[in-house]
């Protein structure tokens, strides 16, 4: 808080820390067993603190400049030292684990909420090293990250270090052994997928999508639930997020197996068909770019009988109606490609297009009719009830007699 008082003492502290950093990185055999306890104590005393309230209560990580940590000049050196300590060839996890324990890691994880990106960057490397060197802490670390994410998704919607934690997870997932444990699958479905609903998705979407794709590369049978999950949380009003979702879907399609593709093609292309006809041209454009992807194109061609009927109506309609000329051009190209894949089906669909629209309208009318009838029925029942209220007494006494 107070960065101007005790300047002289602060300078001494900085100098000493610098000396320590220098010492552990240039000398061998200096990390002796008796030093571990004091080292960890020194690190804890300096970096573990309750993060202060944000200066800006409506802090928007996408818009606002972060508040930088006032004590960075010396905290940085402590982190620096910590890292050198962990990375030193003399470092022995078997001794360190007495001091770097669950409580320590718990406090370390809480610091990821720091608004200062420099601190989060150090934390990321530190945690990565700890995860690598302390096998006994791995499950605990994963579980705590799990809790942080759940709290972020369902309670506070605020945590500054989501991207950094996801980045670490990306490499953790990469190292998962096969077959995947139930715990890991649950993490994917109950944490990573719901995470797509977060307001600030843009801040960590790249890392999140990377994690998801990592999972699918490990175990292709997860493709269907993942895509269904994404479809469930598909953004309704936020076009920026919709573009991100489409990007992620393309990344998934890049690695999808044809058999898995068949399982989700119908719901997936229903969504894509909605996207191509979005009046937001970036959404429509992003979806139409799928047709520039060779692999996706080959999947579509293999399944053209299923996909063309789903896509046709939207494409046909926007080719005539979309306000944006670029989109119209793109749609023409896509229609042309699809026509070349199956000309016969394309012709059939073109000729039945009008009849189809009329059938839809008729269905709409039928629905209204149904609800109207139901409403009447309700009134009728209500009336009957009123009439039978007279008999209520006898019914009640009958039932109670039984």
């Amino acid at each position: 808080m107070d960065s101007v008082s005790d300047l002289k003492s602060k300078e001494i502290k900085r100098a000493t820390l610098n000396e320590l950093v220098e010492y552990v990185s240039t000398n061998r055999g200096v990390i002796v067993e008796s030093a571990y306890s004091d080292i960890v104590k020194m690190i804890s005393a300096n970096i573990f603190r309750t993060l202060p309230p944000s200066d800006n209560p409506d802090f928007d990580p996408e818009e606002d400049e972060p508040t930088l940590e006032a004590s960075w000049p010396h905290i940085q050196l402590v982190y620096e030292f910590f890292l050198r300590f962990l990375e030193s060839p003399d470092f022995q996890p078997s001794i360190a684990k007495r001091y770097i324990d669950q409580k320590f890691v718990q406090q370390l994880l809480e610091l990821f909420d720091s608004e200062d990106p420099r601190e989060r960057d150090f934390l990321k490397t530190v945690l990565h090293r700890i995860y690598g060197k302390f096998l006994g802490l791995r499950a605990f670390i994963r579980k705590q990250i799990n809790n942080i994410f759940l709290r972020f998704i369902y309670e506070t919607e605020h945590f500054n270090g989501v991207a950094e934690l996801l980045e670490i997870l990306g490499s953790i997932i990469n190292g998962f052994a096969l077959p995947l444990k139930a715990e890991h699958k649950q993490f994917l479905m109950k944490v990573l997928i719901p995470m797509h609903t977060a307001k600030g998705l843009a801040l960590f979407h790249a890392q999140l999508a990377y994690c998801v794709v990592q999972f699918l590369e490990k175990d292709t049978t997860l493709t269907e639930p993942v895509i269904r999950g994404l479809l469930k949380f598909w953004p309704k009003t936020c076009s920026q997020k919709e573009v991100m979702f489409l990007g992620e879907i393309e990344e998934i399609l890049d690695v999808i197996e044809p058999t898995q593709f068949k399982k989700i093609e119908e719901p997936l292309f229903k969504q894509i068909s909605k996207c191509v006809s979005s009046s937001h041209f970036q959404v429509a454009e992003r979806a139409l770019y799928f047709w520039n992807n060779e692999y996706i194109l080959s999947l579509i061609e293999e399944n053209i009988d299923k996909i063309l009927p789903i896509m046709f109506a939207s494409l046909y309609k926007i080719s005539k109606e979309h306000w944006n000329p670029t989109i119209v051009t793109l749609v023409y190209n896509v229609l042309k490609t699809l026509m070349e894949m199956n000309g016969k089906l394309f012709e059939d669909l073109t000729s039945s297009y009008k009849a189809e629209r009329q059938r839809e309208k008729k269905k709409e009318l039928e629905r209204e009719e149904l609800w109207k009838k139901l409403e009447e029925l309700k009134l009728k029942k209500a009336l009957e009830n009123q009439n039978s209220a007279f008999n209520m007494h006898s019914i009640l006494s009958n039932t109670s007699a039984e």
Partner: protein
Amino acid sequence: MAGAAAPGTGLGAAGGDGDDSLYPIAVLIDELRNEDVQLRLNSIKKLSTIALALGVERTRTELLPFLTDTIYDEDEVLLALAEQLGNFTGLVGGPDFAHCLLPPLESLATVEETVVRDRAVESLRQISQEHTPVALEVHFVPLVKRLASGDWFTSRTSACGLFSVCYPRASNAVKEEIRQHFRSLCSDDTPMVRRAAASKLGEFAKVLELDSVKSEIVPLFTNLASDEQDSVRLLAVEACVSIAQLLSQDDLEALVMPTLRQAAEDKSWRVRYMVADKFSELQKAVGPKITLNDLIPAFQNLLKDCEAEVRAAAAHKVKELCENLPIEGRETIIMNQILPYIKELVSDMNQHVKSALASVIMGLSTILGKENTIEHLLPLFLAQLKDECPEVRLNIISNLDCVNEVIGIRQLSQSLLPAIVELAKDAKWRVRLAIIEYMPLLAGQLGVEFFDEKLNSLCMAWLVDHVYAIREAATNNLMKLVQKFGTEWAQNTIVPKVLVMADDPNYLHRMTTLFCINALSEACGQEITTKQMLPIVLKMAGDQVANVRFNVAKSLQKIGPILDTNALQGEVRPVLQKLGQDEDMDVKYFAQEAISVMAQRLRKLDLPVKDSEELSAPRADKNHFLSPTVPGDNTRKGPAYQLHVNTRDKLAQLELAERVHFPQSRD
């Protein structure tokens, strides 16, 4: 596509066999499977209609199982379902069958989305009350236990909210089990569950026997209050309020106070903030003795906390704290133990802290009395009136009434004036707006002379502010001033200045004249309105800007009720008729609206309107008049059509001259 056949068969069943009761479920199933979320949502929202149509028996045997099986949908649909089921008891056959609603709600209480889960818990709480004691033990309590021992944290979180509703009516053996479950959730592995348990701890304590509170709740409270996560610890502070209310002073001292003291000095500012924020409740809960011994020192620390958030929260509570002190000795305590800290806060470096203090500090004057206020508080008020932050000054000015009662506002007026003048010119329009809103209050306290001399010119200057919201507020302000100072004052000081603006080259200012007249006419009364305002309004009907002209029409409609009938008939009507033929569509519209409103009024007064015989005829049969002029009825869309019918509808009640003229000009 899957459900496409269903409505057909549904209809067939309904039409063909005449079995009406068959198809509601078909409709629902079809609609619930629709691809369009909105349609699924609609059908869920009409669930009660469906249930009513089905009858109680089939609702129980068909609808509810179906709903329970199909709970995999968008959260929005689930939310609607959770909400509906809370009010479903009547539709399944009354309290005896309330337990039928538990299975679907149980599933809903385990979903991930917090909003859905909370709503399901809310509905379960509602329904629990409708269970008989037996049904409660047979159906409801087992559900709570299942939730409490669920695998995934969501069901355990939901369980936390259900203990307190079933505990009071359960038998002793079951009570023991319920307490056991609650205990284990308080030490759950997942912080989410511990938070849920901590937030329900107070509620649960209230329904427990006193012995159990002491032997079980207090240890749980102590544990939660020293949880490793500050988000759990701070919830324990809230529970502290409820628990403290249940215990005797001695028990409080021994069982709760050590924890509370520790919370007030917690290393996390969030926990200290919570203590500050709940301070008044805590103070009431622990009683005067502990307040003096423990809470006041804690409060002093919070007032000089190192985090501004905590100081601001504590500053907000200063007045309430002082008010709630026992009257005997109150003055001394405030003077010696609170005021020194307040003095520090007046020059705090954080503006939120200062502004929080400014919003309550004036309230101390009534507590401390005249002499103390003049000697000790006044210098603080004056300092805050000069604060660099406008919000601080505003907060002081907005609470002037408290001081006025004690020492009279004159003491302050010398410092007040520069503060007001500066706020009145602040670059932020919201600040200007806020000070305008206090003007009537200030005027009342400062008196008419002071006002005329110092503040009147400010009020007039706001009328030509470049922000509309300020001009609008300034007009309302004038009206309130007139209500305070009377019509004579208005006539001499306000009205002439307002009317001069009618000739301003800026049309926005000319419109302000009209808005002022709208606001002032009622307060000024008939004479001033007719003699001074009306001529100006009528003159402005010839303005070259259409916006001014249609506002003339609106103004005439507005001030119509204040004018006498001669003025209406003789002066207003011709002008409106002329505007009714204006080349601008909007002017025409508002003029015609004004004409019809005026005509209605004249009729209500039962005044002889000329051509009265012809009037009654079309009124009795206005459709006859309308039908020939709406050929084909194919123009039924857009506002133009509505305008058409509206006015014509009303015109049917008007005079022949207008009636004949209008359709020609429109069509």
